[in-house]
C-alpha cells in the first residue's frame, strides 16, 4: 500500500517535471495556460490508465502508450491543435477499457481528424462495418468476418461517390429543387413509366421464366443466353437499334404514328426502351425462383386433380412470389436508372436521368447536383422499401383460401 503511494507520487512529480521542462525550453511550444491544461489532462489520463490497466498484461500497457503516442503525434505534433488533443486524449483514456468503444473511437479519430472533409460519409459506413464485425464475432470464423468486412470496405470505396454526393446539399436546397415543376414532373414520369414497364414485362417474363425453369429442350442454353443480350449490348447501341426500327421515318415507326401511336419521343417510347433494358433482370431472377420450387409439389398438385394452369397459379407462382418480387424490384430499378437508350430514342418527355444530364450540360455539376441527389435518395428509398417489403410479407400473393370454390 505504502509503496503504491510512493510510486504515484513519483509519477506525478515526473509528469510535472516534464511539463515544467517543456515550459522552460527556449521558445516553448505552448503558452503557460495550455501547458497547465495539458498537465492536468495528462494527470487525468494517468489516473484513468492506472485504474484501467491494473492487473492487465504488459501488452495492454504498451498498446495504451502506443495509442497515446499516436494521438500525440497526429494531433499535437502534426496538426498542432492542443484543445482537440485534450478532448481526444480524455476520450481515449475513457474508452480504453472497453474494446468495442475503442474501435469506434479509432474510427471517429480517423474520420473527423484525418479524413476531416469526408467526416460524416466515412464515419457512418465505417462504424456500420465495424458493428457488423463486432456483432458477428460468435457466429463466424475470423477469416469469414475479415472477408465480409474487407469486402464491405471495398464496396464503400466503390460506392463512395454516391455517399459523398448524398452529403452535398442541405435539405432546404433539396426541397427547393423538388418543388421546381420540371424536376417533380421528371421524377414522377420516371416512376410512372418504370412501373408500367415492369408490369408489362412481368406479364410475359414470368410465364417465360416458368417455362425455362421447367422445360428442357434443345437450344435452351442459347435461349437463356439470348435473354441476357440487353445486359450485354451497350445502351447506345440499343437506342440506335430502337430508332432504326421504330424511330421517325422508319417503316414501322411512321405506320404506328399514322395510327396515332407515336413511339419515338413519347411515353410509349420510354416504356419500350425500359422494357428492353430491364427484361433480363426479371426473367433470370424469376427463373431461379421457379427452379427452387420442388417439382414434386407440382406433381402432387396435378395428381390431386389440378390442371397445369391451376397448378401454376396455386402452387408454383405463390411459392416463387418472393423471388419474382425481387426480380421485379431489380427490373424496376433498372428501368428508372435507364439513360443511354432513352436519351437517343425517347429523350422527350424528360425523365429524371435525362434531366440530370441536360441540367449538367446547361449549367454544370453544381446545378445538376441537387436533382441527382434527390433522384438518388428517392430511388434508394423505394428500392429499400421494396426489398424490405418482400421479406416482410412471406404470404404475399397467397393462393385462394380454404373452401372457396375455384
Amino acid at each position, binding site marked *: 500500500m505504502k509503496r503504491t503511494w510512493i510510486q504515484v507520487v513519483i509519477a506525478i512529480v515526473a509528469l510535472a517535471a516534464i511539463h515544467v521542462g517543456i515550459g522552460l525550453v527556449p521558445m516553448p511550444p505552448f503558452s503557460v495556460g495550455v501547458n497547465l491544461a495539458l498537465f492536468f489532462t495528462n494527470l487525468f489520463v494517468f489516473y484513468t490508465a492506472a485504474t484501467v490497466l491494473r492487473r492487465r498484461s504488459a501488452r495492454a500497457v504498451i498498446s495504451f502508450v502506443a495509442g497515446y503516442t499516436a494521438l500525440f503525434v497526429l494531433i499535437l505534433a502534426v496538426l498542432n491543435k492542443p484543445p482537440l488533443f485534450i478532448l481526444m486524449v480524455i476520450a481515449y483514456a475513457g474508452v480504453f477499457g472497453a474494446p468495442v468503444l475503442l474501435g469506434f473511437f479509432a474510427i471517429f479519430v480517423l474520420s473527423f481528424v484525418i479524413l476531416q472533409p469526408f467526416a460524416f460519409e466515412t464515419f457512418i459506413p465505417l462504424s456500420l462495418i465495424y458493428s457488423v464485425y463486432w456483432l458477428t464475432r460468435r457466429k463466424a470464423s475470423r477469416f469469414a468476418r475479415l472477408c465480409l468486412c474487407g469486402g464491405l470496405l471495398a464496396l464503400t470505396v466503390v460506392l463512395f461517390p454516391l455517399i459523398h454526393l448524398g452529403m452535398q446539399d442541405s435539405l432546404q436546397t433539396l426541397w427547393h429543387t423538388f418543388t421546381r415543376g420540371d424536376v417533380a414532373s421528371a421524377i414522377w414520369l420516371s416512376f410512372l413509366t418504370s412501373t408500367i414497364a415492369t408490369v408489362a414485362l412481368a406479364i410475359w417474363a414470368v410465364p417465360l421464366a416458368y417455362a425455362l425453369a421447367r422445360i428442357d429442350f434443345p437450344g435452351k442454353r442459347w435461349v437463356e443466353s439470348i435473354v441476357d443480350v440487353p445486359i450485354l449490348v451497350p445502351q447506345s447501341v440499343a437506342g440506335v437499334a430502337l430508332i432504326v426500327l421504330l424511330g421517325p421515318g422508319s417503316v414501322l415507326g411512321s405506320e404506328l404514328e399514322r395510327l396515332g401511336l407515336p413511339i419515338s419521343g413519347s411515353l410509349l417510347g420510354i416504356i419500350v426502351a425500359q422494357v428492353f433494358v430491364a427484361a433480363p433482370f426479371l426473367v433470370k431472377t424469376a427463373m431461379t425462383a421457379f427452379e427452387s420450387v*420442388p417439382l*414434386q*409439389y407440382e*406433381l*402432387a*398438385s*396435378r*395428381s*390431386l*386433380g*389440378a*390442371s*397445369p394452369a*391451376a397448378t401454376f397459379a*396455386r*402452387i408454383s407462382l*405463390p*411459392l416463387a412470389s418472393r423471388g419474382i418480387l425481387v426480380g421485379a424490384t431489380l427490373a424496376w430499378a433498372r428501368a428508372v436508372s435507364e439513360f443511354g437508350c432513352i436519351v437517343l430514342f425517347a429523350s422527350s418527355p424528360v425523365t429524371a436521368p435525362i434531366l440530370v444530364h441536360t441540367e449538367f450540360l446547361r449549367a454544370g455539376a453544381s446545378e445538376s447536383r441537387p436533382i441527382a441527389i434527390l433522384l438518388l435518395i428517392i430511388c434508394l428509398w423505394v428500392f429499400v422499401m421494396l426489398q424490405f417489403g418482400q421479406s416482410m410479407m412471406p*404470404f404475399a400473393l*397467397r*393462393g*385462394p*383460401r*380454404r*373452401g*372457396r*370454390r*375455384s
Partner: protein
Amino acid sequence: MIELENIRCSFGDFALRDISLRIAKGDYWVILGPSGCGKSVLLQTIAGFFAPSRGRILVDGRDVTATAPEHRKMGLVFQQAALFPHKSVRENIAYGLGARKVAREEIDRTVDDLVDRLELKTILPRPVATLSGGEAQRVAVARALAIKPDLLLLDEPMSALDHNTRLELQVELARVHKELGLTTLHVTHSREEAAALGDHVAIMLGGRIVQRGSAAEVQSRPRCPFVARFLGLNPSLIASLPACAHTCDEKPGECVGEGAN
C-alpha cells in the same frame, strides 16, 4: 381393378421393359426392388407423368394411357411428403377436392372424416413447416385419400422416416387400407416393409418384374440368385439356385424375367 399391360417406357439408358400387373380392387401390392430398378418411374408412369412408349394402363377396363394426370384419380404420396408449404394442414388435405370443384360442405365433411381416421386433429392448427416426418406423411396420405383415388400410389413413403415412426405408419397404413378397402401400390426397397404390408409382392430389377407372389412365397421360394440375395437369404441357398441365361451377376438388368426358366 387396375391393369398394366406390357408397359414400356424409356429415356436415356434407362427403361421399363414389358411391365404387366393386375391389381384387383382392394389389393395391397408392394413393388420391391433396389434403387434405380425403375420402380419410381413405374409409379409416375401410372400416375401419368411419363407416357409409356408401348402398352396400356386400364382402370376398371377403361384405357387411361393417354389421360392427363389430373383426370386419372391416382393418389400419389412421395418419399418427402411434399406438402404445400404455403397452405395449412387443412388446406393441404382439401386441395384435391378444391381443384375438382367439389361443394364446400362436402369438402368439409370429407376432410373431417379423414382427420378423424388418421388422427390428425392435434396437427391441424400447426404450420406445415413444423410437422415431423411421420406427421407430414400422414397428412400427405390424407391428402391423397381425399380425392377417393382409384389407386393409391405410395412412392417409398417411409424411407425418410426413423424406425419407430416407420412402424407406426405401417400399422396406420394397414389399418386404413383395411377400413377403406383401398387399392394400393406401394413401392419400396425395404423388405421389412414388404413383409409387413404386402399381401402381394412384385420384385423388380432392371426395369422388369422378376418375381411375384405373396411375401411369404417370395421369401421361401426365390426364383433366382438375385432375388435371394436381395431378400438377404443365406448363401448356401443362393448357391443352389439356377442362374438365368444372362447371369444376374454380370448383367443384372438383362435378366429375362418371369417365365424364362
